[in-house]
């Protein structure tokens, strides 16, 4: 029987299986300040230890201010951060704290540090843990009581095994198009519930052609289609990424050789092993812009705001409510929608390649006067790399704000928030009501499209801008 990559990774982590449930071993547990405090308290109450401190790595990201990371003014936020520091000290865990050089969004630092490895199981009290699947790891988000369970036992009970869903992306992305456009096009095609109960595997020539950064962007948003996790089989690109660069936790020497031999076996034997399968043609994808309040409410930049009765996966009532919240009139060309704020960052698009792309658009151009543009590196490492390449100067000269690393305006737990009715072009992953601040209106786009909107003051097709150069 041919097996999928997902089945292979799942099978090698089964500690025990009963009729209804499976006990899975967890190879890596990532922690941040928001979803962990009660879990640590639970351990203390029961006088338990963390079973494997060496497999448990923490950072602070959600509450951290990006203007000056050290200055957390909101008392509740400060307390969450300080609580994590205390807990890491008490339980002997490694914490990548601010201004330590390796702090960042939990899903950005895992791969950077060489923690995220093919064939492993990775959990975190955070739904975008799916990001790490880009390495062929089985990675998913968990709740606070599960965080406690993993801390104490390094295992997790799972109900029935999810089904597998192959998403094949054929062809080649056109110039000016980005991985973000692929994943938005996928969600637009299958809907926000389209992958519920499944683990998705992305494959095909357009996926294989992507860098690790691009693959991380795609797997990151698996959760936005309802998937439990998203995976991409490891290949030379994956191995190259792990074996090079400054990755202090990655295996080295003989251990790395052994690992590589194993990783070469990690692939789906035959697409017939998938329980379900869809195909997308990359060549047909245009720059994507969300117009509504979930990531499936997406159109091409050349399109128009839809009529409420012509919205796939939404009742006309839901669509009308979304239009109303977003303050949009059906029939309006997307390129006529003005933006107030541009946010480039998050665990979806806050990596070095994303910043390089944004810089390519912004070099020698100016951010429109009506626009506030925030550029927030996903980690301190990304920030230093960008500065070494002189990207920060490009952003500053264009009139954009160059910030410190954190989740920032992705979810507005820190001071970076939209005000009511402000409209953003955002490279993050959720355009839910109020996600970027109460009453804020979010349009999800790629980094290139966000940078283009910053210059134009409204959405605009980035392709001619890139073609014409500066």
């Amino acid at each position: 029987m041919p097996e999928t990559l997902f089945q292979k990774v799942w099978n090698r982590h089964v500690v025990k299986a009963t009729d209804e449930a499976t006990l899975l071993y967890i190879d890596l547990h990532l922690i941040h300040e928001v979803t962990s405090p009660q879990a640590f308290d639970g351990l203390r109450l029961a006088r338990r230890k963390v079973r494997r401190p060496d497999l448990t790595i923490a950072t602070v990201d959600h509450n951290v201010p990006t203007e000056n990371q050290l200055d957390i003014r909101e008392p509740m936020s400060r307390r969450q951060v300080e609580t994590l520091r205390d807990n890491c000290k008490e339980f002997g865990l490694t914490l990548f704290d601010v201004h330590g050089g390796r702090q960042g969004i939990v899903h950005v630092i895992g791969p950077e540090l060489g923690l995220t490895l093919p064939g492993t199981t990775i959990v975190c009290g955070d739904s975008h843990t799916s990001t790490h699947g880009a390495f062929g790891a089985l990675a998913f988000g968990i709740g606070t009581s599960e965080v406690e369970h993993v801390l104490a036992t390094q295992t997790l009970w799972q109900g029935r095994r999810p089904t597998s869903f192959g998403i094949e992306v054929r062809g080649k992305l056109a110039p000016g198009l980005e991985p973000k456009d692929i994943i938005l096009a996928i969600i637009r095609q299958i809907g926000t519930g389209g992958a519920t109960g499944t683990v998705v595997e992305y494959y095909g020539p357009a996926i294989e052609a992507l860098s690790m950064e691009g693959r991380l962007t795609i797997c990151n948003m698996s959760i936005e289609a309802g998937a439990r996790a998203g995976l991409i089989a490891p290949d030379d690109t994956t191995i190259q990424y792990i074996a090079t660069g400054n990755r202090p936790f990655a295996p080295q020497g003989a251990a790395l050789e052994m690992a590589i031999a194993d990783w070469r076996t990690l692939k789906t034997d035959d697409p017939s092993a998938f329980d379900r399968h869809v195909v997308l043609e990359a060549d047909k994808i245009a720059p994507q812009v969300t117009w509504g309040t979930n990531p499936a409410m997406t159109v091409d930049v050349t399109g128009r705001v839809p009529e409420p009765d012509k919205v796939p996966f939404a009742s006309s009532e839901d669509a009308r409510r979304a239009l109303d919240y977003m303050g949009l009139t059906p029939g309006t060309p997307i390129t006529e929608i003005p933006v107030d704020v541009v946010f480039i960052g998050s665990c979806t698009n806050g990596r070095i390649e994303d910043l390089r792309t944004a810089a390519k658009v912004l070099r020698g151009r100016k951010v429109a006067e009506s626009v506030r543009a925030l550029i927030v590196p996903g980690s301190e490492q990304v920030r230093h790399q960008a500065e070494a390449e002189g990207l920060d100067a490009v952003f500053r000269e264009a009139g954009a704000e160059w910030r410190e690393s954190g989740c920032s305006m992705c979810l507005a737990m820190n001071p970076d928030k939209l005000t009511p009715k402000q409209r953003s072009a955002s490279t993050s992953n959720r355009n839910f009501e109020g996600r970027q601040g109460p009453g804020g209106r979010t349009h999800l786009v790629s980094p290139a499209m966000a940078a283009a909107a910053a210059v134009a003051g409204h959405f605009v097709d980035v392709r001619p801008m890139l073609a014409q150069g500066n």
Partner: protein
Amino acid sequence: MEPFKTHRGKVAVLDWTDVNTDLIIPARYLKRVERVGYGPLLFADKRYVPGGAPEADDPDKHGPEAPDFPLNRPAAKGATVLVVRKNFGCGSSREHAVWAVAQAGFRAVIAPVKGEGFADIFEGNAYGNGLLPLELPEGEWEAIAEAGRSEQGAEVTIDLEALKLTLHSSSGEKTFAIEVPEAQRHRLLNGLDAIAETLLDEPAISAHEAKAPAWITPQPA
């Protein structure tokens, strides 16, 4: 979790129906980072004099107790068994509600009529936290409630091994049979929470770890 074998304690009677989780613990307390310290927050907007509810960041700082709140009656002081009416714990799924009841010192909650005493989620959360939710027939519940409402109050002994409950009051002793699902009874008797149960599989977990390849453990360089 502390095992629950037999427990004897005073009862406190709260004669209200459909007590929801917002009443048990108001939403503003959910921003806290702790899992302890919820005891003083139980019924925070009812049990203190007006304006006396605790601060979210300092639950121990609160005003004097409201004398007319049933749990504050002298006979109910130090009670460890809460007697409530139907559909206790309805509303949101917040586990904080169970934390508040348990951390205020209660080990069991007794409600009338099988299948109608508790909201589902509250009942599940209660078992998960070692708080025993008991449903008794109307007449037996009333006997306990009536004794508890009296001037001197009452005590009960809950024997989870023998599945019996004995009411001790000024008019003597009465014993009733109780029902508890077997799996939950097993957990409570042995003080097993989900983690403790998983740890029974310790040999299997260690065996898995022993055969894991060396490269899989992060190697800080």
